């Protein structure tokens, strides 16, 4: 039996915004999975907190018609990533499986990639990360602890991908759809976050991607993300109101 060669997968995420309830389970799960330093109060106040996935909350309208809209945002793993060409040292690059990779060891901390990224999902380590000795026990040995002075961001939990891929390879089987879950997609109670292989037309994410609600964030930048969003539904919205359909 043959197993998929490196590069036959195109990992991606489909985010159903209509299902996101803003619970932040994904945020904490990612924090725990990826050894993200503690966002102390000082870091939060100085807008230096690190959250590879964040849940943005937008206000619409005013009381009593006020609405809070949540949207989870992580690295979009752009096929045409504006963060990549600006990195002077190739510390961030695109790999053959559709992921934007961050090589901590090479990064010199110019923060240029962070300026290049329209999604503001790159986070700079302004300080050395510190944990009390006892809390270091929960650090994930699969994930590097980043030193100060370097950039980090969502990796699509690449170590989970590799772990499952390694198992599949030694067992001589293909990676089953859904066998790989990122920490965030695994936590998400409503299944707003869905992870999978876009190269497999039968995968859950491939099917979801064809939903008529699909859109990508900030498509004006032509980044061609591997994270696809499904639009939020407003059940009370009037559809096809004259002006919209007559226009265009």
């Amino acid at each position: 039996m043959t197993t998929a060669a490196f590069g036959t997968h195109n990992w991606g995420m489909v985010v159903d915004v209509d299902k996101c309830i803003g619970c932040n389970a994904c945020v904490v799960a990612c924090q725990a999975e990826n050894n993200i330093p503690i966002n102390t109060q000082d870091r939060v106040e100085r807008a230096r907190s690190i959250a590879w996935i964040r849940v943005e909350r937008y206000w619409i309208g005013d009381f009593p018609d006020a609405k809070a809209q949540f949207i989870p945002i992580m690295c979009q793993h752009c096929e045409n990533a504006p963060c990549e060409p600006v990195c002077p040292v190739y510390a961030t690059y695109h790999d053959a499986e559709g992921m934007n990779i961050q090589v901590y060891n090479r990064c010199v901390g110019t923060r240029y990639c962070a300026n290049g990224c329209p999604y503001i999902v790159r986070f700079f380590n302004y300080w050395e990360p510190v944990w009390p000795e006892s809390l270091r026990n929960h650090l994930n040995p699969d994930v590097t602890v980043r030193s100060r002075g370097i950039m980090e961001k969502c990796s699509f939990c690449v170590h989970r991908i590799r772990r499952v891929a390694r198992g599949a390879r030694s067992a001589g089987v293909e990676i089953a759809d859904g066998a790989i879950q990122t920490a965030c997609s695994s936590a998400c109670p409503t299944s707003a976050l869905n992870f999978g292989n876009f190269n497999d037309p039968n995968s859950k994410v491939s099917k979801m991607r064809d939903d008529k609600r699909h859109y990508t964030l900030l498509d004006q930048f032509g980044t061609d993300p591997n994270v696809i969003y499904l639009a939020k539904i407003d059940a009370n919205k009037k559809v096809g109101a004259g002006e919209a359909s007559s226009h265009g």
Partner: protein
Amino acid sequence: MQQRRELDQVYTNRKLLNGQLDTPKWWAPTVSILGVIVLLGLIVIAIMINKGLGVTGLSRPVYWGLFITTFVFWVGISHAGIMISAILRLTQAEWRRPVTRAAELLTVFSLLTALVFPLIHAGRPWRIAYWIMPYDVARGIYPNIRSPLIMDPVAISTYLIGSSLFLYIALLPDLGNLRDRTAGWKNAMYTVLALGWRGNPRQWKMQTVGGILLSALMLPIFVSVHSIVSWDFAIAAAVEGWHSTIFAPYFVIGAVHSGVSAVVTMMALMRWLWKWDDFIRPEHFDALARPLIVVATGWLGFTFLELTFALYGQDAPEIALREMQMFEWPWNLLFIIFFLTAYAIPVPMWLFKRVRTNIALMFWTSILVNIGMWLERFLIIVPGLARRTPFVYTWEAYRPSAVEWTIFIWSFAWVTFLMLLFSKFFPLVPLFEQKESQVFTDDVMIGRAKVPAIVREAD
């Protein structure tokens, strides 16, 4: 109208070599004070490198702040040297002579200073070697030449090497002169540096040709350097207010504006400090101020275009950026100061010859220009980052920390310190150029009429 008096060679030598042959009284205390500031700055830099960039006021998404602003500022200042020397040399503008050396020096020292900023602003400066050297040939990982951060050091170091050579070639005759007037270790130093300058016709010819060739070579570099610096920003499509196609000429012309103004400031200082009233004369200020009016107005046009593009594009994030930049506290205050100092106050004043030839007024207006031009860079770089993209949720503010301000001040002390140190060993006004112009402009008797030797003199 000639405003100068006739100077004899001995007077010229004594006056212009007064830095090297005998030291003015103010020199030692000034240099010591600057030295202390420089030292303090270096300590703060060391602390920052040791502790990490947490000591700055940077955040997410304001990843670049005072350091990059000051980097662009000094690169801008560096344009003065080439602007003055190369262009004027090629166009054979005679009035350039007393000004060229100081202008070139300013180029070299401001470039040296500018280069420090991207270095220390990096998170792990000790790994910067990875940037510039193809260090990992075995695994085929070269630096990423698509990144403006690779183009930057290439452009700037080319510029630095070119202008250093330029400076050196122009220094040779004076080095020979100094060698002949000194003894002891100084003599030994000048002997080595003078490269056997004897002042024979072949040497003069080569020196002149070399100067002209370098001038011609440097001009495209001068244009390229600030263009490339502007691409640091223009390439970042994600930052409102950065991704603009007019950035290259806009930055170059702005750099000329601030660089030439900095030369004006420096000339005024030199005239006061070394009492070089006979060499740096009001007509020189006049000659610099006149093109500045044109340059500044051209630059203003670009600034204006930048702002109208925002309105024309109907782009919500860009409009939000401009609103903040111009109307929100404290940016509105900075914007007003910027506009007044970079253009509205100095340029209309320069329209009057009385102002252009008034050294004090020229000194202060040129200082204003550089306050304004520094603010211009700040207002381009930071608000764009603070109002990134339509993700209103991540919009932030930025307040530079004391560490950043200290390093900012350090850079000024450092450039001044280097200039003064240089002045101790090398003439700030090129002796030979000065004398050459003296010969050109001395009155000669033609029949019974006393006329200037040449008619090229500016004025």
